[in-house]
């Protein structure tokens, strides 16, 4: 099985081979480099992987894979953290990091809540991470910062408004 897998803006070509269905040995090749693995699927979401090569040898890893609800997008949890992955190379995880800093950017509400302060108005120049709007949710005031330096082109909410998760608050250019 050959797949394109994107993580952190980089696409890798991954091939999975199971030489024998009777064995738990897998050969996975990532961008041409080969890994011999002993793999057990403990439950649907959990894999125990022991690397049969590498240095140090025989490192033991537990991986948990959670489907995000979008086809081919999995969150892979390792001891080192969570990685959002897109499998099959056709689903991009949003624009690459460089593009995040250019063009029109929209700040949305990350959770349902109430707008308690609007700190900018259309036309304002803002710095990266400058606070734009404060949304109260889960007993806390959450200041939402600008994704980049730029100019406020739209403010879609006013103080006191209730907002849903994902609702647009401010646009920056």
């Amino acid at each position, binding site marked *: *099985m*050959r*797949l394109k*897998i994107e*993580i*952190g803006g*980089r696409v*890798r070509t*991954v091939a*999975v*081979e*199971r030489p024998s*269905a009777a064995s738990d040995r*897998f050969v*996975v090749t*990532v961008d041409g480099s080969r*890994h011999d*693995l002993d*793999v057990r*699927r403990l439950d649907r*979401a959990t*894999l125990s*992987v022991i690397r049969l090569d590498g240095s140090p040898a025989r490192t033991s*890893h537990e*991986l*948990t*894979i*959670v489907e995000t609800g979008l*086809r*081919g997008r*999995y*969150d*892979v*949890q*390792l*001891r*080192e*953290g*969570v*990685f959002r*992955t897109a*499998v*099959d190379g*056709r689903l991009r995880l949003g624009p690459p990091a460089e593009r995040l800093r250019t063009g029109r950017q929209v700040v949305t509400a*990350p*959770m*349902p*809540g109430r707008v*308690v*302060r609007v700190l900018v108005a259309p036309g304002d120049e803002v710095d990266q*991470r400058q606070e734009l709007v404060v949304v109260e*949710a*889960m*007993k*806390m*005031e*959450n*200041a*939402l*910062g600008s994704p980049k330096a730029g100019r406020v082109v739209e403010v879609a909410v006013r103080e006191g408004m209730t907002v849903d998760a994902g609702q647009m608050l401010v646009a920056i250019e």
Partner: protein
Amino acid sequence: MKVLVANRGEIAVRIMRACRELGFRAVAVYSECDRSAPHVRYADEAYPIGPSEPRDSYLRIDRLLDVAERADVWAVHPGYGFLAENAEFARAVRAAGRTFVGPSAEAIELMGGKVTARAVARAAGVPVVPGTDAPLDPGLSDEALSASAGAIGYPLFVKAVAGGGGKGMRVVHEPSALVAAVAAVRSEAGSAFGDQTVYLERRLAATRHIEIQVLGDAHGTVVPFVERECSIQRRHQKVVEESPAAEMPLERRRAMAEAAASIARAVGYTNAGTIEFLVDETGAFYFLEMNTRLQVEHGVTEAVTGIDLVQAQFTIARGVPLDIDPVRALTPNGHAIECRVYAEDPDASFLPSPGRIHELRAPSGPGVRDDSGAVAGSEVPVFYDPLISKVVAWGIDRAQAMARMRRAVDEYEIHGIKTTIPFFRWLLRNEAFASGPVDTTFIDATLAARGGRPFVEPSPEAEELAAIGAALYAFFEAGPGEGTSSASVSAWRQAARADSLRA
């Protein structure tokens, strides 16, 4: 004997555990979204009290009193948050002939108002943070306001008298911003607490937040405990606490404990309470405020003193004299650290991250305690505080406690939502934190210095392993025919077909 636990989440479970240990039946209340929550499942009895919004359920005094009567409980424990510092609730419970597990309504009122609390502290001879002695007169002219502020000095805080939990306060760095800040805090406080009264307080530089737990019984005994250090805060709210504080000379510990006890004695304080201080670089300490209830971080004190504070609350509430050795209470046995696992994304300025927890495996083993309000499958609702669980690690010294906590947060597995765990993994490997005390600006300064870099930075090896994991998962999901080249082709086709259907 039954106890009504008028709360939810981890603290409700914590209190119910004490109930079971003491032989009380625990009665839970729940809002609509909490019907299947762990505190309901843990309880012996459970009553619905309304819609999910706190004001329609956990803040409804009438409904709680109704449940207290129907279940015929002898006592009501308010936990923290919600109605825990509401004098009207304490009064209503007692008027209904039941025991409120907390201080008198009068003590709640006196110490809940920040300006009256400052007056109590001053009268008890305890230094307070420099600031206005009385609330600002609503009709005060801008000039008089400026003069008042000038006398205190900048930077300063405009604080709501009724504020708390990091809300109803704003920092002012220079005179030109003063008038607007006062207006803003008045307006916020009016809508958040129904009280527009504000006052000014000096913002001390490089302070640590150190607090003293006290227990007072109905017979006049007040026992102060070894301090807790709570300087690791985001949005003026604690995320990490420890006991004892690093670099705390015995003399200062005794002085702070005595200051806290004298404040508690001055108001005839009963049950559990905490006096918060700011400590500056010289070691001078200033009264900040008093919390007239059980503190979230009570577990670190339990770890180093061995005294069960919730059990003690029930003992006090029953009118039994406290039987606590004051030396035990003030002498830390080893060192304890708490990490609060919040449904928040530390890589996005600790924004809340509500949602469904897919998997949850809490750490255990030597020296580790987990107090949780969630299990795998739990929903973290958007309506309440996003605290999931509290991990406390105990060690014979600070180094061992930190090593165990590092091991514990490495073990902690939670999937489906973002949590503060990655921040803790970073913090427990941070030199500044490991080598001694840090001040309350630590997280803000850290976030600014990191400039958006995630707390756990992925190594190329880890990214590669994640790619392998995703590929293996796709392989297994493709079904038992996988592993031959023809099957691979058909899997490609399937994927393409599914995509074209979606497009």
